[in-house]
């Protein structure tokens, strides 16, 4: 029986077995002891044809309520930004899609040069000197940065602001014991972090992680937070939204040691949480402590410019237990999507998308206060594309009732923050329109309070 992903005919098999010098395929497995063999067929449903498979997955997909079927103001780490067609076109090139890590540079100049261009884009966004080729996501790059800090400072605590994405904090806490690190959290004060309080907590710490804009959407006094960390000689680590960096200052410009974040917003679909890419960039002094792949420029034997994986003595396949990380497979294709997206935007587009988000979010704030009669959780705090509102009753119930009217109004913050059971986190990307915001305001006027 043929299979679309297999090729050997019976004649092929017979000839190959003859060349090998065995009489059956079964004999090829003779080194496997009888006691550890399965000895039966796998208990799985029968193989599908491509057509049946497509129907089955279309049916599963149809049972999801995605952002094309419901007007969505969900954010909280993953955002419904526009992904231009050029991203799909480039990522579907088989030469990129089906290549491995570029260990053989002469076969891989396309991937290598594009990673070099990606590293440049990330350094330009963040104001840093060196970027790696990507990490898994915005959560794990924060853990990676803790590993850098642990070894760069030989200190044993990291400080994370409570206004940092809860999943980032959870992942850092999961990794920390293995690194010999304790995690200390600094509470927010009315939606942002107090630099003096952070300075005290940073005393003796390996690193300080804060998020800009923070999880509540508020703009932190980021330069003051970085200064607080730097005064304590802890590494100052900013977790940033790449799409905010056309309008918000680059972390490298206010003294951060490391800038990192979730790349999804820049060029990746939400895709139920992944795969996306995490970006991680640092000042030059940390280049030999960076985790994962880094591409560098060099020349070939004819003097022509080319690109290679470089500083590989940091990495697991060379340095093994002394490596700066265990990472090998990363998120190159998604990072390439990020590069294509940022190239599509250009500097003015990056600024435009930030300004459109700012304006629409400011409009949404107005409408939710005026039309829906809601109160901002942190009135007076500047925000970027996301903000928190009190909805007068359990936010989960408000979400449920709004969804019955075709609108997902946002993320219920009570799951992560005690005392915020009646708070919704509302995200407004450039994909939303003033009319859609009016509709949100109408629905919330009906179902909130």
């Amino acid at each position, binding site marked *: 029986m043929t299979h679309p992903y297999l090729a050997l005919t019976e004649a092929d098999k017979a000839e190959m077995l003859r060349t090998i010098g065995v009489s059956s395929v079964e004999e090829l497995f003779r080194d496997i002891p009888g006691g550890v063999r399965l000895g039966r067929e796998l208990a799985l449903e029968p193989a599908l044809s491509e057509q049946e498979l497509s129907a089955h997955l279309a049916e599963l997909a149809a049972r999801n309520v995605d952002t094309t079927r419901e007007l969505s103001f969900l954010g909280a780490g993953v955002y419904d930004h526009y992904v231009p067609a050029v991203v799909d076109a480039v990522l579907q090139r088989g030469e990129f899609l089906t290549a491995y890590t570029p260990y053989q540079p002469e076969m891989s100049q396309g991937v290598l040069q594009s990673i070099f261009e990606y590293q440049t884009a990330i350094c330009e966004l963040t104001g840093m000197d060196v970027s790696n080729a990507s990490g898994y996501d915005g959560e794990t790059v924060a853990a990676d940065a803790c590993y850098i800090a642990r070894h760069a400072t030989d200190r044993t605590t990291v400080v994370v602001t409570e206004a940092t994405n809860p999943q980032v904090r959870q992942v850092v806490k999961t990794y920390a014991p293995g690194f010999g690190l304790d995690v200390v959290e600094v509470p927010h004060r009315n939606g942002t972090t107090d630099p003096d309080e952070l300075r005290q907590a940073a005393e003796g710490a390996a690193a300080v992680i804060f998020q800009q804009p923070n999880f509540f959407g508020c703009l932190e006094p980021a330069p003051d937070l970085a200064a607080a960390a730097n005064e304590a000689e802890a590494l100052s680590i900013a977790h940033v939204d790449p799409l905010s960096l056309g309008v918000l200052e680059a972390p490298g410009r206010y003294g951060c040691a490391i800038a990192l974040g979730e790349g999804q917003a820049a060029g990746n679909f939400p895709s139920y949480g992944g795969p996306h890419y995490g970006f991680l960039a640092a000042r030059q002094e940390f280049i030999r402590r960076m985790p994962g792949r880094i591409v560098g420029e060099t020349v070939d034997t004819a003097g022509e410019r080319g690109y290679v994986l470089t500083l590989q003595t940091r990495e697991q396949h060379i340095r093994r237990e002394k490596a700066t990380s265990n990472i090998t497979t990363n998120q190159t294709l998604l990072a390439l999507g990020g590069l294509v997206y940022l190239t599509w*935007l250009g500097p003015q587009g990056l600024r435009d998308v930030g300004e459109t988000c700012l304006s629409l979010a400011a409009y949404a704030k107005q409408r939710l206060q005026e039309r829906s009669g809601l109160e901002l959780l942190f009135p007076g705090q500047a925000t970027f594309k996301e903000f928190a509102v009190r909805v007068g009753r359990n936010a989960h119930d408000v979400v449920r009732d709004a969804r019955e009217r075709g609108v997902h109004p946002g993320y219920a913050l009570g799951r992560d923050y005690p005392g915020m059971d009646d708070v919704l986190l509302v995200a407004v990307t450039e994909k939303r329109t003033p009319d859609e915001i009016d509709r949100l305001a109408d629905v919330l006027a009906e179902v909130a309070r």
Partner: protein
Amino acid sequence: MKLIYEKSQPGRRASSIPRHDGLPEPDVPEALRRTEPARLPEVPEFELIRHFTELSTRNFGVDTGFYPLGSCTMKYNPRVNERLVTLPGFASLHPHQDEDGVQGALELEWRLQEILREVTGLDAVSLQPAAGSQGELTGLMLVRAYFEDRGESARRRKVVIPDTAHGTNPASVTMAGFELTHVQTDARGNIDIEDLRAKVDETTAALMLTNPSTLGLFDENIEEIERIFHGAGALMYYDGANLNAVCGISRPGDMGFDIVHINLHKTFSQPHGGGGPGGGPIAVRGILEPFLPVPAVVRRGDDGGFGLDFDRPKTIGKVRGFTGPFGVFVRSYAYMRMYGPRLREMSEAAVLNANYVLARLKDAYDLPFDRLCMHEFVLSARELKREHGATALDVAKRLMDYGFHPPTVYFPLIVPEALMIEPTETETKETLDAFCEAMLAIAREAAEDPELLKEAPHHRPVRRLDEVRAAKSPVVKYGFAEHPQPDAVAR
């Protein structure tokens, strides 16, 4: 070829972003406002497409040709999977959407877990880890949590790893806070059992083993290894990098392993993407289930619906965001449904292909362990080097001129001048034959004209690149006006 930044001209752009009249002015407090714009490329859309299309032509993938890169399982990536992953119900699904709005996604994840349980012969699965090495680290965190729970964590500090292991194994051990114990390989390519016996005791936490090993050999003493570790109260971790050899034939759970990671991007055909994304789910024995990452994807008893369970008091926590790389799950689930129980045929074809290529090449190259192989095998260019000065690297570079991606070279570390070849199951006999002919021709060339190898590749967009120079004074981003120009670089 120029960098995209070198094609940039101020005033050009590919994007247009909606702006709306009558909205509040965009406002950022002055102290936080961006002062210098990011110097992103400024190009029109058609230049963007031409640039990345040209870059793609300077790259080689499975879609381009044969890619026998050992230990990476470079098999064909079905196109239907790329179509399915773009369905709006998958691609545009927000991970914070409420449970009733993600039933299709959760069912897919749950079904994938069920398939992985059957394929590994274990009891419970977490899909969360982002790649194999994160699966390893997650597995070691489970080991730590298990022994903490039993009050044994203070003394069980050691993790045993054979000298053939991938570098990720020892790196993961360090990151998880354990200590390493190395064991040797014996003359047949199995773990040296006597060496092992001397090193496993009540301070041992776990074994990490790839089976078949990176030599492409199934460890014939796996049952004895299991008795040694479980006899000492330690756990066994299976690195699933080579699972493509044994699907439906021998399961890690049947071999005695307690924790397994599965590389969805190897065995189950998530495209490698030039280095990622991957997927590294872990499957575990029931005793370890309470410690798995949260949330768990569960089927609810009451209505048959699916849900996320965060209430796992003994969990190690979260190792990445949300439930894992969902798009990878869509592709791998689709791939496995195209096979069902016929996954065994997939592994059989992979093993047959590898043995055929081995049989055709073993007289021209050294074979350090003369056994039948599994899905891959390791040759050595030791003799070519001694007699003609042609190294494994030279062979690899010369293969490029014949239109093939080279095998993995210089790994595993215990084989000098190693060439690690993994054909996978998705090749025709004609392709395998053409590759063998090229390898045999290169062995002849090494004797007749070794310079041909040393100067290879001759027909790629670049010649052999100077990696030492790249590492010595690293240039890791474009320097704009200060960037060394190609001509200047060349001199």
